[in-house]
């Protein structure tokens, strides 16, 4: 039973990170129907910035995180305002290609500056843990869960109650109609990219905490969050959270139990388990668990 709780804990913590990554995708997809292929690179950039501010610049850790968030928000907003606004109205394919370009630029810049070797993150927890009832709770993961919940709660309050949250939802529903009633849609898109940058930083930095490490491969994690987004529904922030946590749990539980109980599936089956779940869900619910089939009166 201890193993089960142990897996549940680590799966939940991993799922929280996936939820954040998925939320980054969702925020941008909802506002402009674009899948942002640079989300993973923003994740890496955020994590490296935390490390750079904390270690190279010797900022206190909390400040380093805030500064890194600032950098990623800036990159997102500037990219939207300087590049994407000129291709507004172009086919989604064009915009997707541009995000792939951004991804390559960020990845290459990060590698050029920091190299390919693992770096210290500069977090205050390293491998410290508490052990209630024989289960090992790593501090970094406890903080992951707490912080991610705080961020998600903040996002949902913003989305539901604030003026700009409403503007984002209106723009997502019908961009031209939102413009027509006076919503400054360009500012809304910039905001979406800012939010995506912020959640990417937090997600990226928790991904790099113990027992993982900070190296350039971190940007590939965005692809691991992909089943989470599809599972939850591309346009639903709530779906991103449920999808993320589900995928995290599936991955960790498979990793823990499959080798002993279903070894004929081979090693590393946990890598594909999330995709199997994704396919099964899509067969039953094509819009994802929370994705909206359009509201229609018959």
């Amino acid at each position: 039973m201890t193993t089960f709780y142990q897996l549940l804990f680590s799966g939940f913590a991993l799922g929280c990170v996936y939820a954040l990554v998925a939320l980054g995708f969702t925020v941008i997809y909802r506002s402009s129907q674009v899948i942002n292929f640079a989300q993973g690179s923003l994740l890496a950039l955020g994590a490296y910035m935390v490390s750079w501010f904390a270690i190279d610049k010797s900022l206190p850790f909390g400040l380093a995180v805030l500064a890194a968030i600032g950098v990623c928000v800036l990159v997102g907003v500037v990219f939207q305002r300087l590049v994407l606004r000129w291709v507004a109205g172009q086919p989604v394919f064009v915009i997707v290609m541009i995000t792939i370009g951004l991804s390559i630029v960020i990845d290459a810049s990060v590698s050029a500056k920091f190299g390919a070797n693992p770096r210290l993150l500069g977090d205050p927890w390293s491998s410290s843990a508490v052990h209630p009832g024989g289960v090992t709770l790593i501090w970094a993961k406890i903080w992951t869960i707490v912080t991610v919940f705080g961020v998600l709660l903040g996002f949902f309050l913003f989305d539901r109650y604030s003026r700009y949250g409403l503007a984002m939802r209106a723009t997502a529903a019908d961009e031209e109609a939102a413009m027509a009633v006076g919503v400054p849609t360009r500012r809304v898109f910039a905001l979406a990219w800012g939010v995506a940058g912020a959640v990417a930083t937090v997600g990226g930095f928790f991904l790099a905490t113990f027992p993982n490490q900070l190296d350039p491969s971190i940007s590939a994690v965005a692809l691991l969050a992909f089943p989470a987004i599809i599972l939850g529904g591309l346009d639903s922030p709530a779906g991103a959270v449920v999808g993320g946590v589900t995928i995290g749990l599936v991955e960790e539980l498979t990793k823990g139990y499959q080798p002993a109980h279903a070894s004929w599936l081979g090693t590393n089956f946990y890598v594909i388990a999330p995709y199997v779940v994704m396919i099964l869900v899509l067969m039953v619910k094509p819009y994802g668990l929370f994705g909206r089939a359009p509201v229609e009166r018959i």
Partner: protein
Amino acid sequence: MTLLEVSGLTVTYGGAVLACEGVSLSVDEGGSVCLLGANGAGKTSVLRAITGLLRYHNGAVVHGSITFDGRSIIGADTSKLVASGIAQALEGRRIFRDLTVSDNLRAGAFSARDRSREKRVRDEVLQLFPPLAARLGQAAGYLSGGEQQMLAIARAMMAQPRLLILDEPSLGLAPLVVEQIGASLREIVAGGCSLMMVEQSTALALATTSYAYLLENGCVTHHDRTAHLLADERVRASYLGTSAGQAEVAAVTGEKAR
């Protein structure tokens, strides 16, 4: 006093397709104007030029001027125009279907002229369109067609406009509903807001506007008081074409004369 003045307006899309040419029209403070014309005559393009939505459709004003309250507004941002008093409801209602009725109204107030009055304005708007008051918490997509049109107009009114611009508000609605909407629009105009609308329903045009322009192939060919314009033989022939349409105008104008 003239509130909106369009003169010599020429609009093209993609630099090649001519949508309207040399269009001139004006809306007085407190006035109500209708833009009539067949499909493809260029009515919506004129509205887009005024409300700043042309760019979104890859169109541009290549000639002419548009002034609102004495200031040129060509190329201005739509949200800024809303803030300065031009609100609109697009053709086909275009409400935010997944959002609640209440959130639709809040969105309409985003760039309102005076945001501190949002609550009071909402009450006034709900009085204009009572069916909406009972449905504030519902997703707007579940409203009936007539209620959706009411919501589209109500949402525009949340901006506290000086000029309300509507594109085909009667589209696809039953005559009784069109009549209700006409009554609300008369109230809006009576309250001091100017009205400019594109309309194919002669009934609604007659009921709510005092002056009308006829657009044909992108040019204004006739303009006169709405009742006169719609009674004109030439207008009837070009705009409505069929004899069934003529009978409709005769019936409506006759009713109006009594």
